[in-house]
């Protein structure tokens, strides 16, 4: 299950909905709005998504994880809209019989989402400036996977 949400993500409910009675290993990742990025003080974030394609690409990433690793369940939810400091931006949860698969798949999903799912992040700084991440004029892709 991959979904975009304009409403705040509830990690407790997300986790609860993915529990598997067969037990085993559950690994989850939470990405939260940080108070700084490259030395600048962040006050808030805005996430914008190309919803139609983001949901397709997110679902493809989850399907790839299921194909590559032996898993019982995978899920990912990504927030859109304006988020304050500490708010949950992305959640990934993976259940597997063995922890190796759960860790590796959880990492795979968040890494792929960050570089493939059409979601954009605009940071608002304490000095009044704001900026779309990874879109600097002379930007290259080297900064893509650095944050979070």
């Amino acid at each position, binding site marked *: 299950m991959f979904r975009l949400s304009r409403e705040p993500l509830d990690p407790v409910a997300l986790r609860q909905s993915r529990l598997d009675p067969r037990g085993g290993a559950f690994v989850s990742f939470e990405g939260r709005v940080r108070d700084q990025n490259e030395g600048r003080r962040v006050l808030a974030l805005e996430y914008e998504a190309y919803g139609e394609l983001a949901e397709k690409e997110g679902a493809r990433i989850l399907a790839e994880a299921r194909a590559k690793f032996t898993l019982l369940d995978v899920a990912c939810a990504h927030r859109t809209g304006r988020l304050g400091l500490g708010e949950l931006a992305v959640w990934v949860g993976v259940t597997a019989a063995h922890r190796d698969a759960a860790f590796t798949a959880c990492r795979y999903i968040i890494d792929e989402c960050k570089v493939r799912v059409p979601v*954009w992040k605009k940071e608002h700084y304490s000095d009044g400036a704001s900026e779309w991440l990874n*879109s600097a004029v002379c930007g290259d892709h080297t900064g893509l996977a650095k944050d979070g």
Partner: protein
Amino acid sequence: MKTVQLQYFALLRDQRGVATESLTTTAATAGELYERLREQHGFTLGPAHVRAALNGEFAPWDAPLRAGDTVVFIPPVAGG
């Protein structure tokens, strides 16, 4: 000449000043259309940093444009 529907996101929306537009163009491919728009609106992102999507799916730059296509140019993503 064909008419396509454009959607803009993030930096490209800011630089274009609108979120959607209907455009009649002679551009044969997604890449050709991006180069023209870039010149016209001063988009700062070169094509190496942008991907094209046609009708809700990623497409190569040389994908042909057809009348009625929905076209989205995708700046570098930054989720999570």
